[in-house]
């Protein structure tokens, strides 16, 4: 086994890199094309987006949705994962099974049921993104938050930490708050960042339930304005990229980057 560089592999990787970078480069070029002449080079597209209030509104909605989803998701799952790791290992396969459900009930199927069940609920829930969509997004994000948290919990020895804390006289609340939570910060952060990427990119449920989130806005610009959408695409990519890099950096504590749901 040589330790020299294998040229074939490197060439192949560079070819692959080209395939993946070309669409991004093309989008960048598009973003500099003017709507009138269809050629380079202008920053008008960027200006148009920045001055469109609908853009800011949609970003705000998506971002707030993400935050809410993260909070609710963590609140629901941190205790759950903690108990499963500490006392209820038998629940693990149950939750593992639940985590497979998104594979079998993808967003497009899920939204059918959602709209049906909650059609008659009051407006403050059904018509507002912060009610209906958040609820759906928590379900979408749950497998990713779960696996991130679980990896974090497994990396620390939950039993020993809890027992040590209790033997020193701490109550459950103190143990959870002062001992356990600080140690899974990295995993929770990874889960949060994954959720952020997912929510900022989720189109299916949002569009079919007619909410104006960021991805829905991108499609609107795509259909109606053309070139300016490229600026949004680059922004969207940038957000995802930033989130993933942050996860990899935070994930020196055991969490792994996984696939989200923006398909």
């Amino acid at each position, binding site marked *: *086994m*040589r*330790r020299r*560089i*294998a040229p074939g*592999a*490197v060439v*192949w*990787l560079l070819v*692959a890199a080209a395939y*993946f970078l*070309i*669409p991004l480069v093309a*989008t960048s*070029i*598009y973003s500099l094309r003017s709507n009138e002449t269809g050629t380079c080079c202008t920053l008008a597209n960027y200006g148009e987006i920045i001055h469109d209030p609908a853009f800011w509104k949609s970003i705000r909605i998506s971002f707030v949705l993400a935050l809410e989803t993260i909070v609710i998701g963590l*609140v*629901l*799952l941190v*205790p*759950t994962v903690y108990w499963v790791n500490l006392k*209820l290992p038998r*629940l693990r396969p149950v939750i593992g099974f*639940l985590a*497979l*459900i998104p*594979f*079998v*009930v*993808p*967003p*497009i*199927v*899920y939204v*059918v*049921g959602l709209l*049906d*069940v909650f059609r008659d609920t009051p407006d403050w829930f059904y018509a507002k993104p912060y009610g209906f969509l958040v*609820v759906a997004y928590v*379900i979408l994000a749950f497998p990713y938050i779960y696996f991130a948290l679980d990896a974090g919990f497994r990396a620390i020895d939950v039993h020993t930490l809890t027992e040590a804390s209790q033997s020193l006289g701490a109550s459950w609340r103190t143990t959870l708050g002062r001992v356990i939570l600080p140690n899974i910060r990295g995993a929770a952060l990874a889960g949060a960042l994954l959720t952020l990427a997912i929510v900022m*990119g989720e*189109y*299916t449920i949002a*569009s*079919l339930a007619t909410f104006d989130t960021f*991805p829905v806005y*991108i*499609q609107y610009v*795509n*259909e109606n304005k053309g070139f300016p959408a490229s600026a949004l*695409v680059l922004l*969207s*990519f940038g957000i*995802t990229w930033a989130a993933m890099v942050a996860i*990899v950096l935070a994930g020196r504590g055991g969490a792994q*980057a*996984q*696939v989200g749901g*923006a*398909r």
Partner: protein
Amino acid sequence: MWLGTLPFFAYALVFLFLPAGQVMVGAFRDVEGGFTLDNLRTLFDEPYRTGFRQSIEVSLVTALVGGLLGFLIAYAAIREGTPRFLRSALTTFSAVAANFGGIPLAFAFIATLGTIGVVTQFMTEQLGWNPYDHGFSLFSKTGVELAYLYFQIPLMVIVMSPAIDGLRREWREAAASLGASSFQFWRHIGVPILMPSLLSAVILLFGNSFAAYATAYGLTAGFVNLVPIQIGFYLSGDVLDNPHLGQALAVGMFVVLAVMMLLYVPLQRRASRWAR
């Protein structure tokens, strides 16, 4: 004690099982509210029949092609002889690319290979060959497949990397010391060991592709006949007479995906048996 887990399960019950159950049940209802199998029977008529066929075709193609390419890329990056930074770059990029789908991806491909896309124009002007004159169109099933590969390949890389990593260097060296060539190693040891992981990864890719909606919609505004697109039409109010048809379509998708899942789970278990 287990009260700590209760909120979560209650939440899942109300917001996951209830809607999912509603879909299952609704598919078997007719307009008056009685039980019927008609909705499901309609799935075998056009255009739904073609929709399922095309969805399965697209998923197969992107799963197999994406699987093969993803595996080769992952292997190229992980094997000895590749600089370390390339491997880290690949890992990070795969994580990003696997999540970069939907509308932004569709637009990026339009910018690349659309009628006035950058690459299209490059080929027309510099190479004198316009793909659109030769039967190619991005806004078709082929275009969708091409775009899907953009997140399928990275997904394969992410899923297969641990398995390839688990191919111990000692096995390779032991095989060599026993006289085996590279081909013999792969044939008798490498591929058999990786096979469960490979198969389960390809199944994952299939499911991923089958369920995708946003990318196809962004590319074709709904003009390609795939099952998720049909469901989308139904929900946007385009199918008027039978509200339960959309649910039947959803159940159809669910069945396909459930079959995939039944294949996936035992394969995954087999794969982890050798990961020591």
